């Protein structure tokens, strides 16, 4: 935990700061050391790389795929489902038309008109409407990741704020925050999330951050953040408590630094590494919660797709059981979003694990 101290004391010794451009052998900031260690950790590096590629595939990639494939995620293709409404499987060429040919004679499912061009469904169709599952997974992944990252950020900001107040001020403030975190930890978070999620209904659904986010994304971010802030709060509080009595804080108090300055310049930098590690894992937790809450019908609402709503497609809803209970099952409807969620969460967890080791000040350089 000497990162902050090393940085301030090395500022005078660092030749670069004195205008001398010759580098000193062996000097490296804590973040550079961490980066060096992270590159050596193959699993963590691969996880980080995967997440970068995933972000590229979801954000610019989704639009690109739409252009390349020639159809969008919301275009219905009636020929992408068979007579019993079972969607087609992966890598199927589907007649490129949005309308069914009129029924002729006693033939129930007439073929499309001659000369209709085909369009490729890489992962098959997603349900009775015949949307492209691959494209919907990309656009759904956007929403899921946005909720995951946003909720983790909200939880980190709220948690750091309350944890700092509790740990630095102590006394009554600490008592209040600690009791509140204890209370939150004892409660079944998912059940409350569902109740509040259904309760606020469309309250903030249409607030989209000036068109940057889809409908309902911001609301779900807030909701998940409001029920996960207590983990970072506990971590920050514990660190503040252990740092409060250290010599460098006493020194800062002695030279007359204000409480605000001590907290922002001397204490919070120590907490940043743990928050980076914890934030990574919290993104994974928030993605899992988004999937769960949306699946159970209290999260992202229909026109917007997320991995949770893709998973729900075949299962139905609480009151109306879906196709999973019928004989016409398309396993890819569950496998595709399931694997996407699994790989994302796995990569986030492994990256968090790698960051923990890389940012450990006691670890080997």
């Amino acid at each position, binding site marked *: 935990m000497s990162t902050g101290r090393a940085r301030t004391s090395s500022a005078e010794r660092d030749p670069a700061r004195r205008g001398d451009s010759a580098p000193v052998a062996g000097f490296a900031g804590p973040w550079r050391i961490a980066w060096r260690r992270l590159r050596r950790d193959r699993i963590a590096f691969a996880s980080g790389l995967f997440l970068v590629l995933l972000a590229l595939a979801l954000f610019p990639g989704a639009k690109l795929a739409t252009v390349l494939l020639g159809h969008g995620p919301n275009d219905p293709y009636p020929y992408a489902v068979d007579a019993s409404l079972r969607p087609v499987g992966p890598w199927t060429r589907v007649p490129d038309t949005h309308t069914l040919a009129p029924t002729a004679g006693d033939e129930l499912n007439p073929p499309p008109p001659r000369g209709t061009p085909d369009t490729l469904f890489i992962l098959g169709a997603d349900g009775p409407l015949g949307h492209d599952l691959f494209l919907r997974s990309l656009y759904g992944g956007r929403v899921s990741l946005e909720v995951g990252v946003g909720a983790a950020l909200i939880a980190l900001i709220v948690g750091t704020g309350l944890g700092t107040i509790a740990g630095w001020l102590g006394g009554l403030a600490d008592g209040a925050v600690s009791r509140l975190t204890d209370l939150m930890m*004892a409660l*079944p978070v*998912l059940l409350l999330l569902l*109740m509040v999620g259904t*309760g606020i209904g469309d309250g903030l659904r249409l607030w989209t951050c000036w068109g940057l986010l889809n409908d309902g994304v911001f609301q779900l971010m807030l909701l998940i953040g409001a029920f996960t802030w207590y983990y970072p709060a506990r971590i920050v509080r514990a660190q503040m408590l252990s740092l409060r009595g250290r010599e460098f804080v006493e020194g800062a108090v002695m030279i007359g630094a204000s409480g605000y300055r001590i907290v922002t310049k001397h204490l919070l930098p120590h907490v940043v590494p743990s928050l980076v590690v914890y934030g990574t894992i919290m993104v994974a937790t928030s993605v899992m919660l988004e999937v769960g809450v949306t699946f159970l019908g209290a999260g992202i609402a229909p026109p917007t797709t997320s991995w949770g709503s893709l*998973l729900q497609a075949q299962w139905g809803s609480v009151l109306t059981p879906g196709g999973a209970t019928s004989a016409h099952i398309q*396993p890819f409807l*569950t496998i595709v979003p*399931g694997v996407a969620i699994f790989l994302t969460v*796995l990569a986030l967890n492994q990256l968090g694990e790698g960051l923990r080791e890389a940012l450990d000040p006691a670890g080997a350089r």
Partner: protein
Amino acid sequence: MIPSWLAFVVRRLATAAILLLLLTMVTFVAYWKIPNEPAAFLVDIRYATPEQIAHARHLLGVDRPLYVQYGRFVWRALHGDLGRTFTGARTTGPSGAPVAGQVVHAAAVTGSIALGGALLLFVVSVPIGLLGASRPRSLADRATAATSIVAISLHPLVVALLLQLFVASRWHWLPQAGYCSLLPQAQPCSGPVGWAEHLLLPWVTFALFFVALYSRMIRARLLEVLGEPYIRTARAKGVPERLVLLRHALPNTALPLVTMLAMDIGTAVGICVYIEAVFRLPGLGLRTLIAMVGLGLDLPMLIGITLFTGAAIVVLNLIVDVVAVMLDPTISRSPRGRTALLHLAGRTG
């Protein structure tokens, strides 16, 4: 010793009572604020006259001020009556089912899932932990470590859906969904066999979510214990390695295990919500979902479930804390035992 135990338990129960009061109050106020017409349970509000709607509201008891409703709820709850559900209410004759009975039935389902799942969890994770600790860094140990990394990243919903999809829907090995009562009843399916058949997939889902955490924890604790002098003594006097592991080392994992169990109760309730939704088991989770998306918000049912779940979590935590104190010789037998108990009360209360 008795007074300190008693003081601890009484103090915890008093905190719990306040907590439950707060919890129900918040739920009450929250649902008062939500735009919702409870009269929809009795009349079709699209066609009903204002008089009919007013009459329906009066029958359901939602026409009185909020504090009167809450006061009546608390007074009745103290007498063991949680009211009647809105679902199934009628303008004439008997109203909805008693909430208390519904909640007890739902709790039996959730309890079956959680208890069976926890049992399966221990049956699986203790041997894995023992294996890992007896041969650390062996092929088997590394394989289980890799498996737990995978298991920890699997969403319980995905696990449940895939199990249902393949084991039940495709291969027809087990029933797809639904619940069977354990006690023989005049229903198409009941009794221990049907009960276990319907719950096998839920148990597997439940255990799979926690198995990585628990087997890793047992392994770490065992490795820690195996380095202690009393284990060296046992080995030196010629105790077989199997007995060293099972008799000398394993009991020492009980305390951290129980502590971890207490921390996971809330998570377990969440996992049960997923499981109940996928396998359509009428437990507390599914009943909550149905009470929220039916004709309207079934407030008595929701309050009943909230109250029951909160109380169950408090009581389970209390039991776990008491068991932890009993398991830990350094707390219960030291002269500072009372301080330790009060510390415990302060920590978790």
